[in-house]
């Protein structure tokens, strides 16, 4: 049914994004890249995919410059798609940017709290999370002004309003602020894709639910694992878990009580995918615990790696569906992973540490 009218508004966008998806690097490309001897070789290998954007790089560019340029390409393509989007797809894409916006606002809050000149921070902000009124936030010199500006100027106001007060900004650790915002954002996004008349009951809702649920679970698990040994209390930790996802509610409840890696493993037993991740990570991670990206051994994949892998697989599957907005989300995620892969390979080449160069995640 949804196929009947989808193309009226969104057919062009879907076509474009599918085209972009086809230009993603394949495993053959990656294999070629890992054979490179220098960054310049790598640049050459990236030529077909990133030609225009890498052209301005000087010879022997730094890896961060390379990453910045590849991100530039994603941003410009995203902006093009966004400019052509209409109606609910435009709204959907705006939602996509809110995640980056949260990061940027958190950065500005950090700067303001420490009384830095926030204008310098603008160029550090993620371009996807850029919003027109962001420079306005830099006018604020204290946290109260900033809070008010955020409430007025940004689409993030609801996320702030529901759970964070002015005092919280001042007192709480910026990471808690960020994760609270992100939790609210994920819940809102989830609500949006499942209730908006254009999306509810369509493949969009289905695929996006899967993606967002995965994201929520991943965040819950990561927050739990990373909070061990910090002053984050269990009650506070529980507040940071999104209220949906495959783990919700039993899994998250158990997560909130977990004290160590074993506790987390028990909490996620109910979901087959995560269980297998933890089994693999538990074996490979060794005594230093989970999440080692090869910290213990170069062979074993870390939890983080497996999460990325899983995310990429879901994103890849999104392209098997038609008439859905989710492909835009999936494309952005795939592209981000590609940028991470390129950066990783470039780092390995630059540092001459070829033994771990194959740690990238390639899905096509």
């Amino acid at each position, binding site marked *: 049914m949804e196929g009947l009218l989808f193309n009226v508004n969104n057919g062009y966008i879907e076509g474009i994004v599918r085209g972009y998806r086809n230009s993603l690097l394949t495993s053959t490309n990656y294999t070629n890249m890992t054979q490179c001897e220098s960054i310049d070789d790598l640049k050459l290998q990236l030529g077909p995919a990133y030609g225009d954007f890498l052209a301005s790089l000087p010879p022997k560019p730094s890896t961060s410059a390379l990453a910045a340029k590849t991100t530039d390409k994603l941003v410009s393509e995203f902006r093009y798609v966004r400019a052509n989007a209409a109606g609910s797809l435009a709204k959907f894409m705006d939602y996509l940017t809110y995640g980056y916006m949260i990061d940027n606002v958190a950065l500005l809050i950090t700067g303001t709290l420490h009384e830095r000149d926030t204008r310098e921070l603008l160029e550090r902000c993620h371009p996807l999370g850029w919003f027109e009124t962001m420079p306005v936030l830099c006018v604020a010199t204290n946290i109260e002004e900033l809070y008010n500006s955020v409430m007025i100027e940004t689409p993030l106001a609801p996320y702030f309003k529901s759970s964070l007060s002015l005092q919280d900004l001042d007192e709480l650790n910026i*990471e808690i602020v960020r994760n609270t915002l992100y939790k609210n954002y994920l819940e809102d996004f989830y609500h949006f894709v499942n209730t908006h008349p254009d999306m509810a009951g369509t493949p969009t809702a289905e695929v996006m639910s899967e993606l967002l649920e995965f994201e929520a679970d*991943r965040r819950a698990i990561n927050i739990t694992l990373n909070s061990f040994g*910090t002053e984050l209390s269990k009650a506070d930790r529980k507040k940071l878990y999104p209220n949906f996802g495959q783990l919700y509610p039993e899994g998250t409840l158990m997560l909130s009580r977990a004290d160590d890696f074993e506790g987390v493993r028990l909490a996620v037993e109910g979901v087959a995918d995560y269980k297998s991740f933890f089994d693999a990570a538990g074996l490979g991670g060794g005594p230093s615990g*989970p999440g080692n990206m090869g910290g213990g051994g170069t062979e074993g994949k870390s939890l*983080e790696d497996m999460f990325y892998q899983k995310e990429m697989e879901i994103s890849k599957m999104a392209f098997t569906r038609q008439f859905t907005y989710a492909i835009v989300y999936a494309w952005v995620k795939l592209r981000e992973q590609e940028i*991470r892969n390129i950066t990783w390979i470039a*780092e390995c080449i630059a540092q001459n540490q070829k033994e771990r160069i194959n740690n990238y995640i390639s899905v096509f």
Partner: protein
Amino acid sequence: MSGAADREAVFPTRQSLGIMKAKLKGAETGHSLLKRKSEALTKSITRRIDEAKRKMGRVMQIASLSLAEVTYAVGGNIGYQIQESTKSARFRIRAKQENVSGVLLPAFEAYQAEGNDDFAMTGLGKGGQQVQRCRETYARAVEALVELASLQTAFVILDEVIKVVNRRVNAIEHVIIPRTENTIKYINSELDELDREEFYRLKKVAAKKQRDNAETDAQMKAKKAEQQRLADSENAEGEQTENTPADILAAEEDEDVIF
């Protein structure tokens, strides 16, 4: 000899010869000790610096790879957050003094302040473990750096000391020892000279005595000959008293022998 100027102003006596010999011995012992000291100083420190530098290279490589891991896991630049959320130093340095072959060297000792977890929550959403591990690797890298810095500082100071020691070694080797040797030679030659003079003088005295003896002998002989002649003339005058005068003669001869 390299000249009379290159010796110490001492009187060439046996006593000062003894002093000089003791001094030479002392200088030689000191020379060998100092030489060994300077070698020990140079060798140990350069080898340790070499080791520290190699270690730093290895550790830094691991550290920068772990930073790459953080970039990969977090998917962005977290440098600013880290910078802003740090309030006090976790990794600190204590300076103390160390005594190496009598040289006081500053030594830096690194330690980590307890309970200082300023950015424990960075990367809470994702990449937190990588951030923590990166911090650990960099802490190790900084440790290696501190060690190297400590050695380098020590090296600079030791360099000064080694120069002084080498200067002393050279001074002893090229100035003090030759000069003392010169002095000893000088004293020896002076003493020899004195010896020779003394010997000559004795010889002179002996010669003089001999001459004197010979003179007295000659006088005696002359006197005796006179007496003989007188006695002969007396004998020729009276043949009867031949026996008795003969006794007298014998007595006289006895007297002569006694003299």
